[in-house]
């Protein structure tokens, strides 16, 4: 955590519109847009900070992207920031999804509509993968070192994506192991 001056939300409305903008674009999930908006555009977080916050958000109950928006809102504006971030994440998307549900009841069996959803699904899954790949660069600054980080990541990917073990098992098992290794490493450095 460095102390140099950095970008931060100017106001509650800045917070609201930033989260609205990324949520309204977030087809298939908002995470990829969050990373681009918060790290690349607004620069409220460095890529390293984004990953660390994400690690906390992902291990808590609730949807990780929302948890992250709560954490960002809370950091700058306390409870008001939380409410504003959540409002930004939900207001427009919830109206849109209800309209879509009404449309789906009428056009849901149209082959063109089904095809478009399939095509967008293929792109949306790529957004997740690409965001993950971009975040791999943070291994370089991780105290565990690139090698150990890579081994842990490969083990997690294999067990979840290919062997279909439960996510909670991996969070507790491999995550616990990773935390202990990191703790020992930090302590031996100090």
């Amino acid at each position, binding site marked *: 955590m460095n102390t140099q001056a950095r970008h931060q939300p100017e106001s509650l409305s800045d917070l609201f519109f930033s989260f609205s903008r990324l949520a309204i674009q977030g087809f298939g*999930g908002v995470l990829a847009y969050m990373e681009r908006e918060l790290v690349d555009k607004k620069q409220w977080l460095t890529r390293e900070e984004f990953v660390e916050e994400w690690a906390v958000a992902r291990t808590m109950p609730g949807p990780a992207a929302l948890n992250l928006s709560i954490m960002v809102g809370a950091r700058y504006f306390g409870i008001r920031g939380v409410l504003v971030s959540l409002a930004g994440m939900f207001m427009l998307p919830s109206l849109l999804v209800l309209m879509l549900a009404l449309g789906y009841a009428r056009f849901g069996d149209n082959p063109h509509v089904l095809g478009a959803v399939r*095509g967008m699904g*293929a792109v949306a899954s790529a957004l997740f993968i690409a965001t993950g790949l971009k975040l791999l660069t943070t291994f370089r600054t991780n105290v565990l070192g690139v090698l150990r980080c890579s081994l842990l990541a490969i083990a997690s990917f294999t067990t979840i994506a290919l062997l279909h073990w439960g996510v909670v098992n991996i969070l507790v098992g491999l995550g616990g192991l990773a935390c202990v290794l990191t703790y020992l490493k930090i302590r031996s450095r100090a």
Partner: protein
Amino acid sequence: MTLQNGVVMLWADWWDLFQHFLSYSIASIGGPLVLLPEMHHFMVTEQHWLTDGQFSASIVLAQAAPGPNILFVALMGWNIGLNAGGYLAGFGGAFLCMVGMLLPSSAVVFITAGWVQRNRDLKAVRAFKQGMSPIVIAMLIASGWTLATANTEAAHDWPLWLITTATTLIVWRTKIPMLWLLAAGAVLGASGLV
């Protein structure tokens, strides 16, 4: 999504539904999707408030629509409301389920995040954030992988996989707006090319 009319929702039933979502919220460590089997059991199998088709359509639609995927919860409440009466009940149901799903977990996150921020220099906190990082990054890639490969097979769906691969490279390596890529995917899909 066919209407299943004749579902009767008393105030006690709405309260029951709300309480169930409060408990799903607290239990949703590892992401809300791990709870889908339990939600299905309660709302579809046990109470018959939702049809099978409505249940899966809620998930698919929330994923296809812009915004947080957790909106599938709002759609489930919306459908229950429609089944029970009409659009007003639909709005009520969507709101009730969404608030139930968010309230407990958000409170936990708010309190914990504050503590983490105040104690960010503790060795244990630093170890947790740094240690968990490679795991959660891998999970992100794994969920993209699972989305891309679920319900598809190589012989028939290889064009879809090609799109996923190409898009991954583009997003990873360039700054091309992701909305354009989504639009391209939609056009290719709608035209029947993939």
